[in-house]
Every structure is written in C-alpha cells, then in structure tokens.
C-alpha cells in the first residue's frame, strides 16, 4: 500500500453508488422471500488513519477500515436483529437467518415496525459533509509534531506530554427498508489534539485541547491547539481549597454541552415510555428561564451532526425542543412514539446539531462579574447524573472566583444539586460557543449548587 497521500484512503469511501445499494436491495429481497412483514438494513463502511507523536517522536501510525451490516426483520410484530462485519453473500445470508430466528422467539409488540412510509425522507439537501484531506503521511506527522512542540515550548512548567495526534476519517452509510426507501450519507471528520502535563512542587496536572471539523481548512492551526493545551495545563497549577457550601457555578462550554445532553436525554422517548425520566409528562411545561430555547438544526452545511434522515429513514426537520423555556418537543423514534401515542420526531439515533439560543450572550468577564464569588467548572468526573429523578453529583476540576475574577484553580471538589433546579436556575449564557461542535452552547451560569471541598462547613 503506497502511503504517500492519505486522502486516497478516505476519498473513495465518500462516493455514493457502487455495490452497497445493490447489497441492501438483495438483503431486503431475501427477507421478503422469507415472508417477513418488514425488514431494514444499514450498512456502513469507513476508513481513516491516525498519527500520534510524543516528546517529538512518532509513536503510532494507525490505519483503520471498518465495515458493518445490521439487519432487522419484523414478523407478526416480533422483532429480530443481527449484524456482521463480513459482507460476503454467505455471511449476509447467515445474518438474515439469525435475525429471522430471533424474531421467532421474541414476543409481539404492536409498536414494533418500520416508521410510517409517509414519513420517509424525500428531500436530501446538500449538507457538504465530505472533504478528503489531501495530506501526506509526512506532512500529517509534521503537523502533529508542530502541535506538541508549540505547547511544550510555551512554558517551562510544561514538563511532560501525553502527545499530540492527528486523525482523519471518512465513512459512508446506507439505510434501506422494505417501504422501498433507500438513503445514503457520507462524511469526513478530521481532528488534531494534544495533551500536556504541567508540574510544580504540588505535583503534575494534565489538560488537553483539540480541534475537529468536517473540512481540514476549518481546523484551528496545529500550533494553536498545542498552545491552548499548554495554557490549560499550566492554569491548573497552584490549586487551593475553597470552603464547602452553596454558590453560583459556571459550566464552561465543553461541560455545558453535557448539561444540555442531560435535558435531551431526559426528553428522549426511550426514557419517557420506560418512566425513567424526571421530565416525563413535561411537554408544555416550563423547565428553563423564558429567555432560553433549545433548537435542533439537522441541515446545517458542514456541521458535525447534520443528516437529512434519521436511522429509520424519517425526514429530519428544524425544531424547537425547548421554546422560550417551555418543553416544545420530545425526541422520539417510531417505536417510542407509538408507545406514547405520538408521532416520531425523526430522532431515531439521536439529535442532529443542538443549539442553545438565548436573548443575550455575555462575554467571560461579564459572566464572572455576575457570579461574584463561586466556581468555574472546567472538567466533570464520574457518572453521578440520575435521569430518573434528576439528582446530580459530580467531581470537578476548575477555578474559584472571588470578586468577579479567577482567584485560584481547584480540584478534589464536588458539585451537587437536582437538574430541575439547575435548569430553572440558569442565570446567564456565554458567547463562547464553538460552531463546529455537535452541541453549540456557550458557558452556562447556574445561580446556586452545593459545593463540597476538603474544607468542612
């Protein structure tokens, strides 16, 4: 394999047509011959590479290529699924047989089945998600080296490195079902990341930064990524301990997106029909301040999570999930929608670009000034989010704020509260959103949470 130009690896995968549609049609036809009521097939193929360097030397060069095919059949409202990584005919036949066999032992559920034929996507806007990166192995290595080097040179306290990496990936996937629907998507994703260690007499601290985009020209420069990683690692040095007690908490954008993920998780059909969501029955209810909305925009060009149809072939549409603080839509697949006697929202497989809209976006110093005295959260640790009842308790690394300015970094502390109170308590939103991320949100300021630290009450 000549590995001079790496885009050769990813580019062919991004073309549409070829053998995949034919394979899907063959599988659906074979399923019909077995007498099933409905069948669906998804096939994905991807390839890419990643190059990691550490302390100025190449560490690993990895070449990826992935294939998978999933088949689901429905027979008398019974569902069976099977998947394989082998696309040869004999293996696909066995996979279909396995799905069919499982459906025989599953029990009927009238909510099972394909999404309604009328909802299948008819419009396929150009999303501009494919752009192979014409870069040589040598150049890719140089970029990764430059990234790490810029970070290591920034500050004498940067003593060690976990390395920098560059990766590029291209993939296509196809979904077809026995309504006759067939849709294909393809996309590329490129990224550069770096993790560095800073040290002082109290020990080592690690932080990282990365840039990721559909097109290489939308990436931040490699050096900028390294410098940002170094700045973040150094900023963690000199941690001190604030007192235990309630105070305002500012979630930086990278952790604010997780907070919004808790809302969309709790509004997803799977949790709702299982009675496992603290937002069950919340349609129309006020859960956030009226100056805030959460919007899904699936058709944004070059965006991380754009798609014209969901994993059931249903057309995706722009919609409010929370409008002026009120829950405007759940996030449903056809199955969860039937369970709730509603219609699918085109969210089988998840959300396609989530945006937090506010009537005002503040800059960082205004947010800190508004906070006065409190905690900035840079990193969250642990899984202490209970979506059944909204209880929230996580480990934190970040900064303590006094008199509206950063006073010192903090670690070994926790924040706790309940998501219902936290969402209603949103006091301000920052202007620092990164439009390349799948969740676009600035920092989020919450009026009060309980902070536990090594210092007793």
């Amino acid at each position, binding site marked *: *394999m000549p590995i001079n130009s790496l885009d050769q690896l990813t580019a062919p995968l991004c073309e549409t047509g070829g053998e995949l549609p034919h394979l899907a049609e063959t599988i659906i036809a074979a399923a019909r011959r077995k007498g099933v009521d409905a069948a669906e097939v998804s096939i994905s193929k991807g390839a890419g590479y990643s190059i990691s360097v550490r302390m100025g030397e190449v560490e690993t060069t990895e070449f990826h290529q992935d294939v998978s095919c999933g088949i689901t059949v429905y027979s008398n409202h019974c569902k069976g699924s099977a998947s394989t990584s082998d696309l040869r005919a004999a293996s696909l036949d066995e996979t279909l047989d396995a799905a069919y066999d*499982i459906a025989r032992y599953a029990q009927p559920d009238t909510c099972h089945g394909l999404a309604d034929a009328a909802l299948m996507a008819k419009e396929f806007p150009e999303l501009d998600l494919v752009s192979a990166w014409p870069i040589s192995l040598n150049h890719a290595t140089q970029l990764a080296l430059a990234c790490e080097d810029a970070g290591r040179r920034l500050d004498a306290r940067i003593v060690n490195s976990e390395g920098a990496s560059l990766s590029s990936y291209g993939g296509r996937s196809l979904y077809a079902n026995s309504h006759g629907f067939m849709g294909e998507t393809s996309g590329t994703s490129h990224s550069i990341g770096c993790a560095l260690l800073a040290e002082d007499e109290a020990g080592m601290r690690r932080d990282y930064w990365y840039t990721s985009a559909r097109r290489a020209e939308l990436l931040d420069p490699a050096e900028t990524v390294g410098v940002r990683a170094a700045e973040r690692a150094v900023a963690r040095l000199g941690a001190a301990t604030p007192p235990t007690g309630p105070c305002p908490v500012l979630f930086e954008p990278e952790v604010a997106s997780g907070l919004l993920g808790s809302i969309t998780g709790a509004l997803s059909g799977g949790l709702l029909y299982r009675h496992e969501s603290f937002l069950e029955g919340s349609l129309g209810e006020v859960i956030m301040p009226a100056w805030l909305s959460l919007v899904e925009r699936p058709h944004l060009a070059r965006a991380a999570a754009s798609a014209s149809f969901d994993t059931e072939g249903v057309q995706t549409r722009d919609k409010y999930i929370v409008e002026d603080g009120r829950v405007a839509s759940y996030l449903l697949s056809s199955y969860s929608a039937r369970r709730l006697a509603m219609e699918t929202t085109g969210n089988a497989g998840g959300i396609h670009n989530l945006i937090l809209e506010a009537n005002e976006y503040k800059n960082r110093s205004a947010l800190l000034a508004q906070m006065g005295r409190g905690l900035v959260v840079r990193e969250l640790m642990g899984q202490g989010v209970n979506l059944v009842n909204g209880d929230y*308790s996580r480990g934190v690394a970040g900064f303590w704020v006094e008199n509206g300015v950063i006073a010192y970094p903090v670690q070994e502390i926790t924040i706790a509260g309940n998501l219902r109170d936290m969402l209603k308590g949103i006091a301000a939103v920052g202007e620092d959103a990164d439009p390349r991320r799948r969740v676009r949100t600035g920092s989020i300021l919450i009026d009060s949470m309980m902070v*536990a630290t090594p210092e007793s009450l």
Partner: protein
Amino acid sequence: MSEIFETAAEDCLDGTDLDMSRCENLLAGLMAPEVDAGELFFQRERQLSWLLEEGKIKEGSFAVSGGVGARAMSGEKTGFAYVDDIAWDSLKPATAAARAIARSGASGRVAGFEKESGEPIHSLSDPIAGMNNEQRVDMLKRVDAYARSLDPRIVKVTVGLHAVQESILVLCSDGTLSGDVRPLIRMNVGVIAEQNGRRERGNAGGGGRREISWLLEEHRCDQFAREAVRLALLNLEAVDAPAGPMPVVLGPGWPGVLLHEAVGHGLEGDFNRKGTSAFSGRIGTKVASSLCTVVDDATLADRRGSLRIDDEGTPGQRTVLIENGVLQGYLTDKLNAKLLQADCTGNGRRESYSHLPMPRMTNTFMLPGAHEPEEILKSVKRGIYAVNFGGGQVDITSGQFVFSTTEAWLIEDGRPTCPVKGATLIGMGADVMQRVSMVGNDLKLDSGVGVCGKEGQSVPVGVGQPTLKVDDIIVGGTAH
C-alpha cells in the same frame, strides 16, 4: 494445553484461505530490519443478547465479527493496520501499511515459534450453543415475574442477557504462538420502584466466563432480581447525602472499584513508562497505609476479568501491586515491559483486533485484614457507609478519582441509620489509600458485571475488596 490452541486456531482460520504456514508468511511480511517485533492478532467473535422489558421479550440480537490486527514495533514506535476480512489479499497490504513506520528493506527475523501450553482456567463451552433460545427466553420471563412478585411498588422490570464466544490467535515474531477460547456471559436486572410519585432505580447482575445455565444454579438470577428490588425500594426512602469531608466505610465486593480507580489505572505501565502517572517513579515507596495489599489476578477460575493468556499471548498471572502499603510494580504489556526494563505481567489487552493492546487490569482486589466488619462500623461516630457504586473515573496524572454511590447509608454512633441519595465521592488516589485505617476480614469479589474503559477501549474486568474504612474522603451531597 495445545487443545485450546488447536480449537482457537480452527475457529479463527476456518473457511479462510489461510493456514498456519501462510500466517507465518504474512508475519514475515511485517518484518523489516528496524522492526523489533511484528504481531498478528486474529479474532472471531459471536455475541447474542436478549432483552426483556415490560414482561415481554422485546428484542434479541446476534452479532458476528472477526478480523486481524497487524502491528509492527520499532523502539517506541508502533505501526498498526487491521482488516475485517480474514483473507490473504486483505492482510498482505495491511502488513505493508503497519510496517511503514520503519524504512522498508529486507525482512527481519522471526524467531522459532514456541506454542504456549497453559492449563484452562475456565470452561471452553460455547455459551451461545449451550441453551436454546426457548430456554433462555423462559429464564428471562421467570426473573421478570419473580421481581414483580417481590413488591407491588415495582413498576418496571428490565432483564438483559448477553453471551459472547470469542476465539483469538496470536503470532508474534518473538516466537509467541498462542490461542484462546473465551466465553463470557452477563445478566443485568434493572427495576424502577414508585411510591407517592417518587421513582427510584435499582440494578443488579452478574456473570463470568461460564455457561448461561450457571445463572440458574443456586437461583443466582433470582438473587439478582431480589437485589435490584431491594436497592430500588431502599432508595425510595433515601434522604439527601451530606456534603464535605468525613469518614467513609466501604462495603465488601464491588466497592473495590475504589482500588481500580484510586490505584489500578495509575499503576498501568504505559503511563509510568511515560512518567505521566501520579505513581510514576514511586516503586518501593509507601503509597498506601500498611494495611493495604492490592493484587491484580488474571488466574482466578471463571471470573469475568480472568485471562488464561492476555491478548499478546502472555500467560495471565497474579501481580502484587501494593504490599503492606509499599508499591511493588506496574502492570505491563510487552512493549511497556521492554521499555521499562521490567517483566511482562501478562496485562496486554485490547478491545478487539481493530484496537492496539495496552496495559489493562484483569481482576483487581485488596487482600483481607483483621477486623470484623461490625467493628469497623462501630468505630465511626458520624460518616457514610457506602455499599454499592455505579462507575468511577480517574485522572491518572493528578491522581484525582471519583466514584458514585448507588447504595449508601448515614452512620450515626457506629450504626447505619438511614439510606442517603446517590453521591459522588472524590479524592486523590495516594492520599485516600494512606487514610485506610481499618481493613475487614470479609474479602469479596464483585458479581461479574464490570466494564473498564481506557482511551476508547472497553474490556471486561473484576474488582473486589473486604470492608474497609477511609478516615476522610469528600462526599458530594447536597445537605448542609
């Protein structure tokens, strides 16, 4: 035990255009003068899962995957490529791509193969073939009915069954020629209890390298149902957890996730070779109270984290990590053992052929101490008794780790008095281990549901510990 090797080799190569001599030929294709070691990892895996929800067998799925990972190592450099297709024509270019880290040239040397011949540490029987679908489905229905019968407040029951049969074959230019057959099963029971509009969840489960019928023996699956129901009902009564530093007594078994996070990850050889762990360069120093002896043991029979050989073909072993508080050594794979100039501990693991191996834990636990569990509780005037946990996480560089309780009690005057809501506990690994002041005589291993994630790769693991007391750890509750 060459029988295991023969079975594994047949599983991996059956129906392909490869035999052992063609595999050796491919391995030679990985070698170049600057390549220290070349490796081919063959894997074939079948997975079956069933899900019961709301009293019905909702869905099942069956997955087949297989492929080969080709790795070439030169000093600290690694070249890696993999294919989903076990075939000569796919593998040939993959070996060339992996070798590209070294300048091409005449082939390097492959040592004479030495077939590994360890004894089995678990059954090789295929759990997917062991019971038919009708019997499996009946078992799930029974568990569901039993869980519902335990209390009218149980409004929702989910029962999941997962079985995997994996075969691997490893050829390495250092002469390694190994194969293994690894069954793995797991059952999870999740319930929701409701009372006066309040809803709480309870989860329990177990498994290991066994056949599915093991779940029926000694009513194990009923025990999982009882435990899930007990937890959900208990949490209906839970009050807000306190906030701030306080003594914490950790129950036996699964709370060993403390060791996994607080010390285990920090002792993995890759971090220490690079000097990025809070434990780097600390072998021979005291990193825990002298009551603590922590081991990683791949050789336990039938356990979820057990490995007869690791994913590089090195026999699994028992490694003492901390003895009486003193750090003894790190967990290594071949690459990091070589670079650390240490022995390889057989901890080279990978999620699949499409991932690179790295040092990972197997079954990690603390050896028992002298105290009765009741004595330990009695010693605490006010604190937390944490019996069950969800997951944990660690920042190996600073040593900061967290884990979240799913069953915890307030201790008042030496007795657990009332359950408290889930809270995150946070600490710095070495600090917390130094504050272990009492260790119980009741070592217990977890029931077999653990999954460990590192750099995007998941592998099954086990944890365990006796009851133990940490004098001071931060509890992330909401109560003043």
